[in-house]
């Protein structure tokens, strides 16, 4: 005869949570909400400064739309980092900027020198990016390199290859220069009369990429396996997931996206520069910052496309405002400060509130 007493978990009596309390809690623990709030805050501050005449230019809808041009490569690389960081085991890709440089040269040759036509050139460039990603993926997933080190090594390798192949000279043939039109802002068809013009790249590159990544992560079995890998790759193996090939795929996708970014960059600069992705501090650092700001857990298993997009929007519009608030070089400097503070601030906030409210997201 069996009697098993079913116990209810003994929790402290739940107090009725007021709407305000719940809102604050959501803000502090849900990264998306926080980012949304910060974006609104930034816009509010900038707009008020604008009307007070404190800005050197006009912080209006047209300006904001034009500023979106820098959102395209940034968000896309943020999505690339999202893929690899999600895969866990210290997943990170330091080589994205170098892949951008290298693939920029590939595109430059395909489109600008060998005249292979736009479609084929895009295909080749994307394939080149995927190949670079495959090298990263192979080192990490099959050999067992820590991702930081593998992508550090390939960063050096790809960077130098770009410079060597191009002879250190940018490719600025006529076709490339004309390609600048691909980066122009266009009017949205049908409803665009009263809306500002949006850079073409948003529609041709960013939105498709973001949509694809979102579908990949949320609606495909690959996405599930990726999350499983990043959350607990030992358990994933026991559950029958092929850890190596799935992790490799994450890096391949990162490389492929970087290849696409190369095309966008070439259009923006109207020239294929071999140092495009690595000049200054490179593109990897901002991309990783966007990912972390967007709520990606550095240990893997947590991250959303919406976080990346919102983080990009916040940073791009904040940067645009800073450029107007401060003259010349000062502007770029304050952008650095803003980025650094945002990164540390957002992480600290999430950490502190996680203790109080439980796991985020």
């Amino acid at each position, binding site marked *: 005869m069996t009697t098993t007493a079913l116990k209810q978990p003994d929790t402290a009596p739940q107090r009725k949570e007021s709407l305000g309390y719940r809102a604050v809690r959501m803000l502090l623990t849900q990264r998306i909400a926080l980012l949304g709030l910060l974006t609104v805050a930034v816009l509010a501050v900038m707009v008020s400064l604008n009307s007070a005449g404190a800005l050197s230019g006009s912080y209006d809808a047209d300006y904001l739309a034009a500023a979106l041009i820098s959102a395209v490569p940034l968000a896309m690389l943020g999505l690339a980092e999202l893929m690899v960081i999600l895969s866990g085991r210290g997943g990170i890709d330091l080589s994205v900027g170098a892949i951008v440089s290298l693939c920029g040269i590939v595109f430059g040759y395909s489109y600008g020198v060998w005249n292979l036509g736009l479609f084929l050139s895009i295909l080749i460039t994307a394939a080149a990016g995927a190949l670079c990603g495959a090298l990263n993926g192979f080192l990490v997933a099959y050999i067992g390199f820590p991702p*930081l080190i593998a992508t550090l090594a390939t960063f050096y390798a790809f*960077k130098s290859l770009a410079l060597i192949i191009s002879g250190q000279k940018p490719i600025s043939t006529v076709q490339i220069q004309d390609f600048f039109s691909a980066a122009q802002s266009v009017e949205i068809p049908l409803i665009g009369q009263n809306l500002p013009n949006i850079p073409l790249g948003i529609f041709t590159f960013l939105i498709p990429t973001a949509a694809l990544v979102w579908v990949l992560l949320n609606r495909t079995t690959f996405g599930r396996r990726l999350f499983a890998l990043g959350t607990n790759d030992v358990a994933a193996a026991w559950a029958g997931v092929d850890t190596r090939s799935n992790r490799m795929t994450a890096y391949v996708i990162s490389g492929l996206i970087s290849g696409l970014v190369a095309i966008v960059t070439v259009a923006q600069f109207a020239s294929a520069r071999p140092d495009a992705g690595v000049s200054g501090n490179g593109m990897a*650092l901002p991309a990783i*910052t966007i990912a972390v700001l967007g709520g990606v857990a550095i240990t893997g298993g947590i991250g959303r496309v919406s976080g990346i997009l919102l983080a990009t929007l916040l940073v791009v519009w904040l940067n645009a405002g800073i450029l107007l608030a401060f003259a010349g*070089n000062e502007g770029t400097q304050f952008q*650095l400060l803003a980025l*650094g503070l945002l990164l*540390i601030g957002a992480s600290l906030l999430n950490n502190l509130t996680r203790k109080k409210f439980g796991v985020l997201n």
Partner: protein
Amino acid sequence: MSTNLKSRAPAAGTPSPRKMLPRLVTGQEIVLIGIISVLWILLGFLTPAFLTPGSILPLLVAVAPIALIGVGMTFVIITAGIDVSVGAMLMVSAVITAQTMVATGISLVPALLLSIAVGALLGLVNGFLVAYGKIHAIIITFGTANIFLFIGLRLFGSSTVNGVPGTFDVFGRGAAGRTLGIPHSFAITLVVVAVAWWYLRHAASGRHLFAIGGNANAARLAGINVKPLVLMTYVITGALVGLAACFVIAQGTSTLDQSVGVGRELSVIAAVVIGGTSILGGRGSVLGTLLGAILVQTVTSGVTQLGWPSQLSDLFVGAAIIAAVGTDIVRERSRRKS
């Protein structure tokens, strides 16, 4: 149990002290010494100019700042942390020191102390956030890298620092930088490496760093002061960055520009991992870092001397990282199996 064991002479048959310690030189270090020797001899053949003091000494001088910062970075990585802000820290220390030297003409020692103090202060910020903020080191130092970069660029004021006096020439490449043919900067670096080596091997808190990197939670439960120790590793890194900044100023011209420090963090991390320190923490060696720095500099210098395109050196560095870490992985795997 321990009450009856306290003061007891070692019984006959106790393993000798030598055997109780980790091996003196690790496999990775031996391999590196071998590779460096081979490269040097090879380069000596291909370009007779390589094995001359005129070429080796500047190489050692160039190694000094990387190896110096590398010592700090090794400490940090052993505790399973990382610091990608060292490049920015270098910029800030360098610009503050250089500007002070230009403005007030202070002498060597105060300038040195100033630079080290600035570095240590920046390191304190990193260390405090990492140790007490409970956020992953890579995120924190990415953030502080940006902030320090901001500070550095503001101080530069979008121009350069001109007319930097030769106060630091004693650390430089020229004749003033040498005694008996040995560059001072390299000698100091050797001393720092030696002290760090001893510390990691024989000091209790040095061994604790390995414990923290191996299992931070267990370290805490064992009564190790994890947070202050982790904080210390970042402060030391900062201080060493400050010292390295003086070397960098010395190695440059009288004009200091904003590119100082750019990308340094990657060269330092490269030197550390080539040297056999595991990025996952718990294992590492400052001797390896020194050798790693020498290897990287050898490659760069060799490429220049052979007249090859300078970008090739980056390619070789990438290959060196893969080779070094790859062999380390293979070696660890076979060790665990046995």
